[in-house]
């Protein structure tokens, strides 16, 4: 086949209508404080892993809340690859809303690896 150089672009848009909310609901149930996040980014600012890699914890759990689970898989090598977290817990210390961020990561890993 001749390669004409065309490709099909996948839409970047988050489609909340086709989203699967089951994992999200399970995460909220396991870590209720997940709901209180106000997106301030304090967790990302203090994150030990974020100082040395492009890991962004706030973005990671925001993606989860918009049901974009595939972006969090461990083989993506993206800035939301949950395996980059060292579970040091600093993020939980700074959160102004008392979100159990460390617990959140543990649960996200558990749910996504299932």
């Amino acid at each position, binding site marked *: 086949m001749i390669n004409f150089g065309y490709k099909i672009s996948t839409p970047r848009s988050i489609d909340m*209508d086709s989203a699967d909310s089951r994992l999200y609901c399970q995460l909220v149930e396991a870590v209720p404080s997940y709901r209180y996040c106000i997106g301030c980014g304090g967790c990302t600012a203090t994150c030990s892993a974020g100082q040395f890699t492009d890991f962004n914890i706030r973005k990671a759990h925001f993606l989860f809340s*918009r049901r974009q689970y595939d972006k969090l898989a461990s083989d993506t090598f993206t800035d939301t690859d949950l395996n980059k977290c060292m579970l040091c817990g600093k993020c939980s210390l700074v959160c102004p809303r008392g979100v159990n961020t460390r617990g959140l990561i543990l649960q996200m890993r558990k749910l996504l690896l299932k």
Partner: protein
Amino acid sequence: MKKIAILGAGPAGIEAAAVLAANNCPVTLFEKEAQPLCNITDKAFLFPNFADANEVAASLRAKLDNPNITLRCSTEVTQLTPSYIAGFQEESLTGTPVWKVNEELYDIVLLATGYTPFDAHRKEELGYGIYPGVHTSLEMEKMIKEGNIVNSLGEKPKRIVFLQCVGSRDEKSGNHYCSKLCCVTAVKQAIEVKKQLPDCEAYVFYMDLRMWGQGFEEMYRTAQQEYGVSFVRGRISEAGGTFDGRVQIKAEDTLLGRPLKMTSDLLVLMVGMEASKGTRELATQCRICGEYGFAQSKDPHLHDCQSEAPGLFVAGACKRPMTLTDSVNDGRSAAYEILTSL
């Protein structure tokens, strides 16, 4: 005895009338509607404590029960002219300006003509008046008050989206200012929706959440914590109707930097506050019309209830968006300014 007219029987006008009456000053209170306090009685519950709006209105209305107060409902004031502009001769009798309110003369006038909600038709891209699933916050409040929250098909909605800053903070609407109340009102309404329909999803799309008042931030937290209301930082750019009477919205989830779309049974537009027709017209007639058609006080710090026009005082949301609490306090302040001026 000086004759005092108060224009507008809202919270500011009523509170001012009550204070003046308690100080033995007869006042005439003009109201264009058939009933006073229409902007409160159309609400279900009031932030931040979910007080019953009818009860609060009744307590305010009870203050009118004073022989010094003459309430004239269904009386729209369309003419407000001071003698120094119109040059009529009555001024010469006392040496101080007099005011013509419609055809009657008064020595002192308090402008408390309030606000009007932004007309959502002006934001055509949001589909108000075009798609049946798009409502204003006032229509949502009515549904909450009647305990009858339904989508355009008359069914219980599964998802409701609230959009902040409609007609405020928007150059396209000609209003650069923040209306101050819509953020907390959306949170209040989202909580009410979840109380009445626990299985309905509620999303609030915001540019900034301005939870400035006592108890507001706590309400925001309660909405997340106890009612599971979701907040998305991003402004909805357009809404379209679906074949089944729902609404599809487009926004950016700015915290993820990605476009987002979602279909909702209802889209609730949190309309801002604009100067009412009465405020615009009367403030213009007596030359105290400021930005956006609101009445301009003499000085925003120390003389906020006075105006540049002698004998003319200003109180409440005719000056800028104001909460009920602030309007009541402002009406009271204006009354004391009037008493001091006598």
